[in-house]
């Protein structure tokens, strides 16, 4: 079709039964986020209508099942009390009944177009036409009916719908056929019965080499491409998708070489996951694990071991809302400070954050290079907004993935010492099983061979050797990999991670109002590139920190390192990602001097 899309999944911590939904924004140019306004809502059940009716704008439409119009709020058991209370108040105010019909009336009064369809009768008709009585009660078909109705309504040519169904059910031709029938029937129902909808999608010019990817695929494919061959992991939302993808694609071709593979091992807990990854890394294998906040918390002790033993591992940290179990399936950039400070004692680590999903593929390659060049653990910050977004982007190019293994040795002569002092603090690295490369590791302080020492003089030398890597990192990593300047202005935002997407779109929206706002995107979060950030911001008058957590964690390390106060915070910790609309609104208030110091966003069900 040629469109660019930005989609996002929202779901409860529940297997089935609770309310899940998917928002997708479609455009003919590159987009980076969701917006507040909904043009078309395709609903299959009453709960969706209760929860989202007010997001649809005047001139927009709601497709709904006319058989459930009289459903009362009280009969939808999954509507939680606080939400129901708010909804009832609204319905009372507008003098409407506590039913689907009630909320739809509010929508209609606002100018929303209603498209009622009896889902049951669609199945009945189909059942009779195909003489298949089973079809009559097949409510599982409701999602196909809903999607097909909506595509008919926006007049999207039906071939992509048909192709998609064939792909999904490629292994079950009978079921594919049933779905095709239902889809076409529903699609035609919409085109015949519904007219005069403002929004149509006839397709646009296709840009070649465009991918449709899910967020977790960036780091997964990045790991494959950059030679990560070992990934132990423990299941946790929203990180497991990456590991499962790696395991599903464990075998692959290697150019001019025998086929390669990734050993993906499900462990008994996150401690074992990182322990195995360290063991793998000691053999010279590029090794990683992937986790989220609670799992990362368990890894903290091991992180220090990897630090003192200078072991290159990558931990992909898909953050979610904390603290504790928090909102386990919801978004949050909650763990920046924890990642930077995780582990007891002083040891060097590198914390790196990807902005948009498209970057995460290339960043993954860089993270492995950093780990091996500087011989330390690297924490790659991702989050739930990344993991469950679906986007279009330029096809990833493996030719741009450089592999730099630092001082990893190919062979060793005699007299090897793993932690030999050197000019740049980095010692040549042997690997377990290598001829003549014997070394010792220990979590205790050690001498150059790796044996325990408690000598105070040697202790200082070793500590200085390891910690000197922090300066080396700032010196060696190219500036544009540390910080991306998207332009600097009197008002300039500092931000990091997935929040960059909504900010970019908000800045574009403001441009149309004649307002120009700068954006500095931090990628190297630790060690903090203080001098470079300072120089970028030297002429900036107002600094705005935008991030998805309570305390403005980037703002804290910014202040600590740059010694400058944040003027405004735009924060969100509802567990739902920011929309560009919300960011736009707050930025506008800031520019107009009407904002609070802390703008707290709350949009989204």
């Amino acid at each position, binding site marked *: 079709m040629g469109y660019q899309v930005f989609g996002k999944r929202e779901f409860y911590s529940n297997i089935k039964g609770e309310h899940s939904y998917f928002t997708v924004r479609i455009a003919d140019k590159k987009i980076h986020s969701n917006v507040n306004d909904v043009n078309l809502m395709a609903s299959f059940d009453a709960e969706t209508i209760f929860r989202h009716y007010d997001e649809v704008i005047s001139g927009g439409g709601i497709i709904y099942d006319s058989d459930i119009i009289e459903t009362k709020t009280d009969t939808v058991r999954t509507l939680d009390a606080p939400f129901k209370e708010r909804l009832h108040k609204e319905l009372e105010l507008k003098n409407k009944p506590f039913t689907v019909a009630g909320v739809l009336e509010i929508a209609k009064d606002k100018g929303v177009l209603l498209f009622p369809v009896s889902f049951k009768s669609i199945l009945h008709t189909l059942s009779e036409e195909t003489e298949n009585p089973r079809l009559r009660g097949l409510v599982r078909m409701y999602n196909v009916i809903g999607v097909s109705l909506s595509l008919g309504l926006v007049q999207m040519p039906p071939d992509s719908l048909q192709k998609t169904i064939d792909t999904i059910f490629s292994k079950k031709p009978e079921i594919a056929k049933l779905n095709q029938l239902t889809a076409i029937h529903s699609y035609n129902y919409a085109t015949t019965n519904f007219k005069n909808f403002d929004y149509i999608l006839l397709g646009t010019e296709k840009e070649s080499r465009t991918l449709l990817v899910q967020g977790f695929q960036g780091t997964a494919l990045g790991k494959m491409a950059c030679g990560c061959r*070992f990934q132990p992991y423990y299941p946790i939302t929203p990180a497991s998708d990456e590991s499962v993808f790696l395991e599903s694609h464990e075998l692959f071709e290697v150019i001019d070489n025998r086929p390669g593979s990734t050993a993906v091992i499900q462990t008994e807990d996150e401690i*074992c996951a990182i322990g195995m990854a360290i063991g793998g890394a000691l053999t010279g294998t590029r090794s990683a694990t992937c986790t989220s906040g609670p799992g990362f918390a368990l890894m903290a002790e091991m992180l220090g071991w990897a630090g003192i033993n200078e072991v290159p591992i990558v931990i992909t940290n898909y953050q979610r809302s904390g603290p504790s179990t928090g909102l386990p399936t919801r978004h949050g950039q909650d763990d920046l400070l924890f990642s930077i400070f995780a582990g007891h004692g002083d040891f060097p680590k590198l914390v790196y954050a990807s902005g948009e999903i498209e970057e995460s593929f290339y960043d993954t390659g860089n993270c492995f290079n950093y780990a091996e060049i500087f011989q330390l653990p690297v924490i790659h910050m991702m989050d739930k907004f990344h993991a469950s977004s679906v986007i279009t982007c330029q096809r990833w190019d493996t030719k741009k993935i450089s592999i730099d293994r630092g001082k990893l040795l190919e062979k060793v002569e005699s007299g090897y010492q793993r932690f030999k002092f050197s000019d740049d603090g980095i010692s040549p690295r042997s690997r377990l099983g290598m001829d003549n490369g014997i070394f010792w590791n220990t979590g205790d302080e050690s001498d150059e061979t790796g044996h325990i020492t408690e000598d105070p003089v040697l202790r200082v030398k070793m500590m200085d050797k390891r910690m000197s890597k922090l300066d080396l990192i700032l010196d060696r990593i190219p500036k544009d990999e540390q910080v991306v300047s998207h332009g600097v202005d009197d008002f300039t935002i500092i931000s990091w991670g997935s929040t960059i997407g909504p900010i970019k779109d908000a800045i574009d929206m403001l441009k149309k109002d004649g307002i120009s706002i700068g954006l500095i995107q931090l990628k190297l979060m630790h060690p903090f590139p203080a001098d470079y950030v300072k120089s970028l911001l030297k002429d900036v008058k107002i600094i705005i920190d935008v991030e998805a957590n309570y305390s403005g964690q980037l703002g804290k390390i910014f202040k600590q390192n740059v010694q400058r106060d944040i003027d405004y915070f735009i924060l969100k910790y509802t567990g739902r990602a920011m929309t560009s609309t919300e960011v736009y609104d707050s930025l506008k208030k800031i520019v107009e001097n009407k904002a609070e110091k802390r703008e707290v966003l709350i949009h989204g069900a």
Partner: protein
Amino acid sequence: MALKPAEFKTDVHNDWCPGCGDFGIVNAIQMALANMGVQRDKTTIFSGIGCSGKTSHFINTYGVHTLHGRVLTFAQGAKIANPEMTVIAVGGDGDGLGIGAGHFVAAGRRNVNMTYIIFDNGDYGLTKGQASQTLKLGEKTKSLPSPNTNSNVNPIGLAITSGFTFVARGYSYDVRHLKDLIIQAVKHPGLSFLDVLQPCPTYNDLNTRDWYAGTDLMDEAQKRHSRIYKLEDTGYEPTVHYDTEIETNEKLSQALIKSLEWGNKIPTGVFYKNENTTPYTVRIRDHIPNYLENPPAKQNISKNGFSNTDISKILDSLEV
């Protein structure tokens, strides 16, 4: 080719207490490695935390002194990434059966081809003698303010029920016997476990060398000069020969019953051995056919400094 045990010794100063049972175990490991003629740089000793954790520093192979309770995680990771290596993990009973018990059980389920040796002394030596997992309920060593309030873990029983496929017990003062057990354990194609009884002369005044020698007993054990006896001397047959449920269950139950024996007669030797259970390498090879020829540690990941992995088919499938 057999080597000399001395080749497996480092010149690191050993700071264990005089008379510590650990010495016998390290000697037995060095003798076993020499006897098998393993290549020093194709062998890694992983160790946990505590007195026994220092073991890896005394052996002249690759040595990885890890964290409390976590030794099996590092060891399995390294062995899976590089299956060519001989891997031996060592640690105390507090380390492996207390804080590390979860990993112990999970390792049994995997059956990675390596060896785990527990130095079993009934106390936490390096933190000054607290009760550890194998000390019996109500026992009070001289380092405890009051009698032990916990029941003990049965290491042999736990290993058997967790899925270890070679389970044996040795005694640190019978170094020759222990060496033979270590050789069998290392050669076993799967995860092998050795529980090594080891007096702690500083803190455990109950299970002392004299106690193991049975000097407090009036009759039989005194004649044998030991509480300890060898299963192989009694005609005990630990091996599952045929991969049938009946034989396996019979050998498992027999080993479990034996594992409960304690007091005036303490069995050592091999309790259970089953080569029919697929080792983890084979389980990986079932879905990664060239895993053994091209394991993670051997894979070539770059060409001229750039990625050589071909993910084009996946990218094709994602193109719209």
